[in-house]
């Protein structure tokens, strides 16, 4: 058993958060795994350049960049298909696989119930990426606006407005989704 390097000591404790962030950016567990692998290797190679107290913003920024590269590749693929579709006047199936339904039961399921949980997951997955990422970093990772601005390479004011807009969108989407359920029940 080799002694873990300083990088491993600092970075590996954040692997769960890194995977979760990648998953929410990509809506795919398989792509998120690739991205986390790639990001940790990149971070390892760039570790000499890391000067700071907290490795988290630095590491998450690398994860985020890797996720965006995958998203861009995906979009390029989608573009080609939709270009084709544009010429033939039909809708291209450009959606990435959305495996958003929660996997197994977890502790939280007992509290909010699987159905409601899936609604929240769906609403979050449907948010535009720029809003989704700040919501995830804030609500799930509990990061400060300053840290989020570092990770997303934006101004704190932008984080503030995206988070506000993201939550308002989520609120509307959830109201719509649960509203629909109510009308079913009636």
């Amino acid at each position, binding site marked *: 058993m080799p002694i873990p390097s300083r990088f491993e000591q600092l970075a590996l404790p954040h692997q769960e958060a890194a995977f979760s962030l990648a998953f929410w950016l990509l809506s795919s567990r398989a792509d998120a795994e690739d991205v986390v692998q790639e990001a940790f*290797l990149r971070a390892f190679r760039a570790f000499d350049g890391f000067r700071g107290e907290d490795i988290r913003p630095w590491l998450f920024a690398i994860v985020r960049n890797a996720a965006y590269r995958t998203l*861009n590749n995906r979009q390029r*693929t989608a573009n080609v298909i939709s270009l084709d579709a544009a010429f033939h006047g039909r809708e291209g199936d450009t959606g990435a696989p959305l495996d958003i339904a929660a996997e197994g039961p977890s502790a939280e399921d007992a509290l909010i119930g699987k159905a409601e949980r899936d609604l929240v997951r769906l609403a979050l997955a449907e948010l535009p990426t*720029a809003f989704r990422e700040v*919501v995830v970093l804030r609500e*799930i990772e509990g990061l400060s606006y300053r840290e989020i601005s570092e990770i997303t390479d*934006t101004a704190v004011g932008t984080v*503030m407005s995206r*988070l506000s807009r993201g*939550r308002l969108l989520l609120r509307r989407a959830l109201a719509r989704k649960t509203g629909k359920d109510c009308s079913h029940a009636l």
Partner: protein
Amino acid sequence: MPCDRHAHLLSAYLDRELPDDEHEALARHIADCPDCTTLVSDLRQTSRAVAGLGREPMPEGLSQRLRQSLEQASDGSPPSPSPQSVSARSTAIVPRHWTASALMRQAAVLVFACLLSALATWGFVTGSARDTLLARDLLSAHLRSLQQESPIQVASSDAHTVKPWFAGKVDFSPEVRDLAAQGYPLLGGRLDTIAGRRVGALVYKRRLHLINIFAWASDAPDTAPTLTMRNGYNLLSWIRGGVVYTAVSDLDGDELKHLAEML
């Protein structure tokens, strides 16, 4: 809806990210404002619902694979994430997913190449001007952006966020101005490809119409905006300061010209 003025601050208020004096002032306002009270409680609930999701659990074995690839990398052996991790995963967890998406990607590239060459041949054979081909490409890019989840890569209404974003990504600096006050809010920017060349795209909105302004560098002298129409879409092109701009939208031609004048 009398209380629009505070709605955008309530989220930061909940996060305690406002300066103390603003926080206090807003707290006093909320106490007196039923609209804001409701919204705060809704937002708090939304927040809790998302926080309650918790982290997405890691796939089994990923932690170990991560450790292995890091050890390998620190041994000095060529640190490549793909062969080891991908094969480990494809046998263990998600067989064939990666290969399938890679195939799709290649197929897509092929389709694109065929399409381009078909277009090029068509243009050549019919003697159709290069401009027509360009217009067609621009329109396709516009339509493509409408079908995507989001037509923007950098979402910001702030010209000082969008303009620097293009630095280092394209070989020119487009003019970016937020014209929200004039009824043309800036949504953001992205990179796109027109005729095999990387171009910048600025995305504006006018009511429900999305406007893509594609921009690329050129040596040509400045020209006044000229309007053409294609498949019911308006294309407005002009050259200014060594940058070619083409705005594409289903917006009325005059309104499009108005936007070009303000930029």
